[in-house]
């Protein structure tokens, strides 16, 4: 064996050993996480877990949500109005009616009593993020663009964080929660097959408020409002009861607008058993929350306290005594519902509403079916190709088979090392890779045959065949790799998966078809001084 040849063989062995070892090691680290038995998982388990499977193959839920950033902007606006009104009251500035032309603007009417100079100072001091104009007896306020963008940005970032907290609490293995574009969030939960529950869990805004009840409940709104002259007084508000199963018409409560405490005052929450063993949720307050809560309950013993979740009254228990730092939410919960409510209360509220744009669920049995059939079909296809190549090229055909097998093994190893996920489109990329690897071998062999027909000696024919086919192989591979790079850059999820597999696969295909095949030919024929015929 020449020195050069020895180096080549060494390099090939190193690459193969490295990728195979990488695959097995990744497989072990994945298998260990899920292994429930004693000791470390067996090799067969590690081999199965070497490659991460996409949701389409292993089952799970894929969701794309849109954050309604307008909600967050609206909240910013309402804060500003409140701020302005509070400051105006303190400074003795009289303000007229407030109107809301859009989520990012409001107008305040001025009356003849309004001290506009003082108002101007107020606005400059307290509302620096707002563009102010005045015309026709109204001051108009519009949120400045950079501030608006920042608000939207924060809303999306906070929504991602909140969803991540909730999913983590739910205990999903390897969840993916990522931002997509400006206001979209991608959530992938492998292995989960209960779409409704997860969707409700993620989407629930979980906005908890505890408010003192003034009147109610009653199914008749007019009767509730009769003592107030048919109008909702400014410091009160009407809240509907959560519909219970079997209940025709939910009732209404008239409650104080200012909340005693909100979800922000919570320290912890957990599912519990209420009276008669019904499921309920027990919450614990922060120090500041407990102070507020104890003062309010102490002053209102005998009254009812409405527990309002997402603007619906869950229940309204009577306050028997001063309560300081803990409370219980009851309602007709199933154990799962109580569990999930406690979970979202712990994880925090969403800053803005969410809309589902896309949801896909793949049941575990379909995934299993797809894999089984995909594997059967691939093995059958591979055997057919191997058979054809060996029949057609005889001894050289075995070289091709070796190159193809190596290609598949190395591709699996590389994908495992890069932590790439194998999806159905990924399998498509795999098939194209194998197709092109077969093609590379065919190109080389046909060239060698042509050289032999042209009367070249076998050794020269091999050399010429490889060097002439080389340019073509490089050209075809680069062309397809370039297209795959564009697909990766501009494509969405599944198209990207295709592109990644293809790029890795083609790089390996060049290596196996040109480098490995050539080396194997040299090993076979290089030592002999004279070759009479090639088996090709």
């Amino acid at each position, binding site marked *: 064996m020449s020195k050069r040849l020895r180096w080549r063989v060494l390099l090939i062995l190193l690459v193969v050993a490295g990728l195979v070892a990488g695959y097995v090691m990744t497989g072990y680290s994945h298998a260990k996480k899920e292994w429930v038995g004693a000791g470390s998982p067996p090799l067969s388990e590690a081999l199965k877990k070497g490659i991460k499977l996409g949701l389409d193959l292993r089952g799970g839920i894929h969701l794309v949500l849109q954050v309604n950033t307008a909600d967050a902007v609206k909240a910013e606006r309402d804060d500003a109005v409140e701020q302005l009104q509070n400051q105006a009251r303190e400074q003795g500035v009289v303000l007229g009616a407030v109107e809301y032309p859009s989520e990012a603007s409001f107008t305040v009417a001025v009356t003849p009593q309004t001290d506009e100079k003082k108002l101007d100072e107020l606005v400059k001091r307290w509302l620096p993020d707002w563009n102010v104009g005045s015309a026709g007896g109204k001051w108009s306020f519009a949120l400045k663009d950079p501030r608006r963008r920042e608000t939207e940005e924060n809303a999306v970032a906070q929504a991602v964080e909140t969803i991540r907290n909730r999913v983590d609490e739910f205990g999903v293995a390897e969840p993916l929660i990522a931002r997509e574009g400006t206001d979209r969030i991608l959530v992938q939960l492998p292995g989960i097959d209960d779409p409704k529950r997860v969707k409700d869990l993620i989407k629930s805004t979980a906005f908890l408020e505890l408010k003192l009840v003034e009147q109610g409940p009653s199914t008749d709104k007019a009767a509730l409002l009769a003592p107030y002259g048919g109008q909702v007084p400014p410091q009160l508000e009407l809240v509907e009861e959560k519909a219970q199963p079997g209940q025709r018409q939910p009732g209404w409560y008239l409650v104080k607008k200012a909340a005693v405490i909100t979800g922000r005052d919570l320290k912890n929450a957990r599912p519990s058993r209420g009276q008669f063993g019904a499921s309920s949720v027990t919450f614990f307050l922060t120090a500041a929350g407990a102070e507020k809560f104890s003062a309010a309950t102490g002053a209102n013993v005998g009254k009812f306290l409405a527990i309002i979740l997402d603007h619906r009254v869950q229940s309204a228990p009577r306050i028997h005594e001063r309560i300081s730092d803990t409370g219980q939410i009851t309602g007709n919960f199933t154990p799962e519902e109580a569990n999930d409510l406690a979970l979202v209360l712990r994880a925090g509220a969403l800053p803005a509403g969410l809309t589902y744009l896309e949801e896909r669920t793949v049941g575990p049995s379909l995934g299993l079916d797809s894999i089984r059939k995909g594997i059967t*079909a691939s093995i059958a296809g591979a055997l057919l190709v191997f058979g054809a190549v060996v029949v057609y090229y005889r001894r050289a055909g075995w070289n091709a088979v070796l190159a193809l097998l190596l290609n598949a093994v190395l591709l699996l190893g590389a994908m495992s090392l890069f932590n790439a996920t194998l999806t159905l489109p990924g399998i498509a990329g795999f098939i194209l890779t194998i197709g092109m690897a077969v093609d590379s071998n065919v190109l080389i062999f046909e060239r060698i045959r042509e050289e032999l027909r042209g009367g070249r000696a076998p050794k020269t024919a091999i050399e010429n065949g490889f060097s002439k086919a080389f340019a073509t192989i490089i050209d075809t591979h680069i062309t397809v790799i370039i297209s795959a790079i564009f697909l990766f850059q*501009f494509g969405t999820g599944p198209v990207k998966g295709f592109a990644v597999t293809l790029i890795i696969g083609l790089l390996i295909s060049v290596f196996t078809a040109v480098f490995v095949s050539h080396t194997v030919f040299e090993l076979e024929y290089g030592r002999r001084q004279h070759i009479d015929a090639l088996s090709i």
Partner: protein
Amino acid sequence: MELFRQTHIDFLRWKWWAIGASWAMILVGLIAIFVQKGLKFGIDFAGGTQIALRFVQRPDIDHFRKILDTGHFGDTGIQRYEAVEKNEVLIRVQQQRKEGRDITAEVLNLLRQGLGSAADASKLDLNTQGRDSLAARLVAADPDQVAGKSGQNPTDYYGRIAEQVIARRSQMGLFRSSADVNSVPGLTPAVKGWIQANAAAGPFVLLSAGSVGPQVGADLRQKALWAIATSTFGMLLYIWWRFRSLPFGVGAIVATVHDTLITVGLLALFGREFNLVVVAALLTLIGYSVNDTVVVYDRIRENLRTPKKEPLEIVINRSINQTLSRTVLTSGATMLVVVALFFLGGEVLNTFALTLIIGIVVGTYSSIYVASPIVVIWKQVSGRRRLVPVPAVKPTAPAPAPSPQKKKTGRR
């Protein structure tokens, strides 16, 4: 073994016929698309909801339709899926304009109520409940009384049990009755008893469900098109640069577009639906087709490098002949894989494989009859033959590579 030995077929002689045949195929596809009033987009691109279910009993489609009509979902399609004996059904609901309706949950509820027995209605449905719901119920009931025992966390303990039940369900396809839990390995009699008393096997198991908003569908469609367009443009630039000739680049791209158009048209003719799987197949086919074309071009370039002055048509013909056995062999080998996928790969891979079967045939044809003739026609129309500075009228006979029809190559 050898299939072809130094063929001398005058491929370019038939180029105008080929162009006619190509247009005819494209037209057939376009007519099929036109008759169907556009392509049949799957929910990926059109928006809507699609649910695949496997039933315990032979599904009665008409009965299902009556049940679903009570939900007022608008345009609803119900069809069998996979082999008949698998009892699988695909339900499609056109997108609802109304916001916030969970169509998937509504359809599943209606079917469960309409098909399940009343006695089971209040029980936990083993076929549709996920691992977590089952685990939560088991933790609440605690049949093995692990709560309070040291060293046992009930959530983990019952989580593992629930996991095994669901794994067994996947293995069996679905549970036929709650007595099937007896076949789950490693359960205590107490747990088995509790499950049989409190859970029932519902009428179906959920294979997959997808729901895509109309805006997202349009988005995905646009992004897929944009990705294909930019990658095609990238290939054009590379081939143009590599072969130092625009006609080569254009020829390769026209061949690719040609293959895609014909394949899309034929898929429409076969009534196949357009979804992301088809897009993956089309991407594969584009890669395959360009690969084929570049192999032929490479040979043309190599043959043009020789000092012999020959007309372009003869050079191209010879190049196609020289690469013919490789073309047929590669196509044949790839076809073997794809045919295996078509017959053995299951429902999901079936459309994928069909797309590739069409694509390989068309792609092989186009690298011979579309990509190269375009180079010839381009040169003829532009009148300049910078590649081969030779008088156009009188082709000089090439000496060592005799072509039987060489006198006719200048036909037209």
